[in-house]
């Protein structure tokens, strides 16, 4: 089969699964699940088959979508290195999570709908990954947003879930609007949206510098929105309202990585636009530190992992911002594995124990789940960046890239962030695996999820991902060759400080939480103000609601008043005025004959004067 049909199969198999589940098999949940898993298998197979073929084919055009101002915009596939890599990652992790969901979602009334939406997401994500032009990418970028909206709001009866879904959609849309305008400017200045063509140095050079920077910044807005970077990140923690496998798939490994993938995809453009990479680095470093500090004080395991995702995404952007495509993509790949693993472990604990709170989990004997705990430890180690595991190698490459050319403020910031990462990761591990009666239980429970013990179908994906998390580190060179970027091999001298920091983080965490009679209190609690600042997530949610939300609803109520009062008012006023003049003119007919004749003659006299030509 030609690569085009392969790509078509890979992307559209899940669509068939989604349609089957949502419309045809509404009443047969098990069949729907099976159909979707089969579809995922097919698309993984296809993705691998595309990878097996040679990776330097021209983009294949399937059909013409529309033509704007003579520029044909068509639906097609671009199958070069980065796309294939991302395609495999998405397909693999989506498959694992769907298998995992078999067990996790058993007994949920919306079982068929759940798998249908999963199929929808997979279709959108894969088509986005393989899209040949920026417009097609944007179309599926929005569809991915839609899938995330439906999946976050899966348990729509929960008001908080509905609100979270709405918040997610609106915030990502704010980013999308920026990206859309950037896309249009790009189209108007180069009159083509074909990615392969766009990435040629010649086309980039043809765009005037000021406009190129503007386009790059606007596209970066999209990335900030989708990958939950600093200003638009508050929706990701709320997205944890969705089922945990969804959080695992979308809000850690694949969907949020779309932003970073887009940045990687358009790397030449961002590099060409001067001034942009500095801005990217600044945003990334702020996000990394901010997210890490908040993760440090969270009690809910999923929230910790959510903030950790934000922080790690910032790390990827640090790598890309620093100019090394390899560092960013490598970290993206490794992060996909160990973050998915951590979420699945959290899911297993929640499934077994029924509460998100780490302390309760610890108390309820989370440690008894041998495989899951092992996965947790390996995942945590990878996340913290301990040497043999995947995280270490990719984080190293980012630090090496940073060392390269930029002001060392970013380097020190990166070191601080990786220290905090190690700290909060192992704080989580010790809280869960080494419970102690000193820590206080949470006030209320809110996860409505039915309990059940961890089934075999849940254990298998955890096992696979554990292997992935461990082994991914060594795939550095392979990835570099695949995406055609220069691999970075930091020398031992450069690696030393990173390893030291990571170990320091682990030790501090052990000291405060792991030891037998540890205080179970973070060092940050000593500085009360900072603690509450992080606890309240820098009051960002409140600020956004008051400023943005308040402003929009103020303008809205003003325009509603204008609509009711001014516009309708003038309309009704004109109506009543005419009727009033109507009454007045009618009353002119006073019924008195002599007035009639008098006024008639008077008017005739006036006309005579006028006609008589005086």
């Amino acid at each position, binding site marked *: 089969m030609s690569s085009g049909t392969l790509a078509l199969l890979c992307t559209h198999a899940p669509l068939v699964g989604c349609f089957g589940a949502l419309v045809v098999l509404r009443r047969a949940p098990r069949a729907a699940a099976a159909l979707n898993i089969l579809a995922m298998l097919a698309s993984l197979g296809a993705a691998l088959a595309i990878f097996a073929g040679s990776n330097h084919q021209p983009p294949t055009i399937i059909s013409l979508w529309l033509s704007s101002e003579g520029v044909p915009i068509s639906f097609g596939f671009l199958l070069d290195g980065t796309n294939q890599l991302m395609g495999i990652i998405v397909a693999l992790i989506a498959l694992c999570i769907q298998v995992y969901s078999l067990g996790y979602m058993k007994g949920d009334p919306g079982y068929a709908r759940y798998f249908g939406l999963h199929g929808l997401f997979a279709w959108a994500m894969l088509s986005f990954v393989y899209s040949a032009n920026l417009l097609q990418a944007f179309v599926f970028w929005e569809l991915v947003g839609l899938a995330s909206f439906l999946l976050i709001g899966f348990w729509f009866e929960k008001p908080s879930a509905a609100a979270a879904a709405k918040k997610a959609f609106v915030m990502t849309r704010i980013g999308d609007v920026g990206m859309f305008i950037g896309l249009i400017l790009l189209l108007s200045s180069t009159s083509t949206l074909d990615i392969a063509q766009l990435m040629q140095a010649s086309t980039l050079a043809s765009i005037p510098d000021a406009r190129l920077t503007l386009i790059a910044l606007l596209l970066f807005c999209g990335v900030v929105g989708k990958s939950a970077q600093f200003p638009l990140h508050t929706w990701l923690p709320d997205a944890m309202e969705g089922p945990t496998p969804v959080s695992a798939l979308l809000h850690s490994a694949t969907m949020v990585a779309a932003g970073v993938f887009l940045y990687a995809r358009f790397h030449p453009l961002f590099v060409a636009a001067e001034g942009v990479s500095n801005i990217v680095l600044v945003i990334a470093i702020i996000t990394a530190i901010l997210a890490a500090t908040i993760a440090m004080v969270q009690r809910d395991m999923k929230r910790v992992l959510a903030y950790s995702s934000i922080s790690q995404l910032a790390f990827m952007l640090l790598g890309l911002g620093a100019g090394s495509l390899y560092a960013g993509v490598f970290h993206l790949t490794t992060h996909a594995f160990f973050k998915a693993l951590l979420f699945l472990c959290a899911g297993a604990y929640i499934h077994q124990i029924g509460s998100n709170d780490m302390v309760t989990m610890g108390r309820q004997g989370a440690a008894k789940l041998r495989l899951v705990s092992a996965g947790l430890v390996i995942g945590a180690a990878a996340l913290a960046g301990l040497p043999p595991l995947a995280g270490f190698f990719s984080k190293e490459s980012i630090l090496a890239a940073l060392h390269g050319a930029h002001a060392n403020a970013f380097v020190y910031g990166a070191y601080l962030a990786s220290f905090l990462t190690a700290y909060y990761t192992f704080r989580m591990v010790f809280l869960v695996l080494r419970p102690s009666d000193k820590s206080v239980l949470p006030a209320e429970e809110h996860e409505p999820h039915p309990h059940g013990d961890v089934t075999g179908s849940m254990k298998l994906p955890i096992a696979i991902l554990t292997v992935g998390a461990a082994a991914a580190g060594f795939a550095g060179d392979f990835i570099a060759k695949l995406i055609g970027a220069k691999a970075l091999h930091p020398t031992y001298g450069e690696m030393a400080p990173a390893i030291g920091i990571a170990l320091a983080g682990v030790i501090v965490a052990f000291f405060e939480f792991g030891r037998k009679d540890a205080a179970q209190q973070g060092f940050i609690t000593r500085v009360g103000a900072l603690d509450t600042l992080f606890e309240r997530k820098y009051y960002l949610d409140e600020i956004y609601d008051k400023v943005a939300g308040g402003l929009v609803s103020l303008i809205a109520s003003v325009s509603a008043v204008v609509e009711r009062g001014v516009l309708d008012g003038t309309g009704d006023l004109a109506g009543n005025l005419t009727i009033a003049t109507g009454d007045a003119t009618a009353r002119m007919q006073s019924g008195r004959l002599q007035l009639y004749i008098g006024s008639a*003659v*008077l008017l*005739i*006299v006036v006309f*005579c004067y006028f006609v008589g030509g005086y």
Partner: protein
Amino acid sequence: MDAVHPSAWAFVVVALGGALLSVSLRNILHAIFGLALALFGIAGLFLYLGSPFVAAMEVLIYVGGISVAMVFAVMLAYSLGKKEGGSTRRFLAVVPVGGFFGVVGYALLRASFAVTSKTGSWDLKLVGRKLLLDYNVVFEALSVVLLLAIVGAIIIARRDEKTGDDKTADEKAASKGNDAASAEERAS
């Protein structure tokens, strides 16, 4: 001779005097007598304008018929008690009347007419022939108008049967008067 014997002014005085009387006097009966006086003056003027037959008709129908009919109507519509004229609103009427007089009067003075001198021959035969030859349609129409007026007047003024009193004498007189006038015309 493009002027008429100055003695015509006498009839002008009678006509205008009568009209003034009919306008100013409060009692309606006096007003009708004023009208009759004015009509006499106008009939006189017609004589000076060379059409004695028309003057005769004027006296006969207008003074004899219409004024008498009005007197009978006033006797029927007996509401002499009512106060007359007076209120300032009445005074407003001067504006349209004065305006009309001024505008048309000014136009009349400014207008120039090709006055032709004529001996004022009132040859009645000429009038009769033209009446029946050129204006025969109009003549018939006038008779239809009179028929219409008579029948209409009777029907409207007739008291409904339920009130019982018969037609007043006046009505009969009024309609007979009109018949007389039209009969005469046909005769000439």
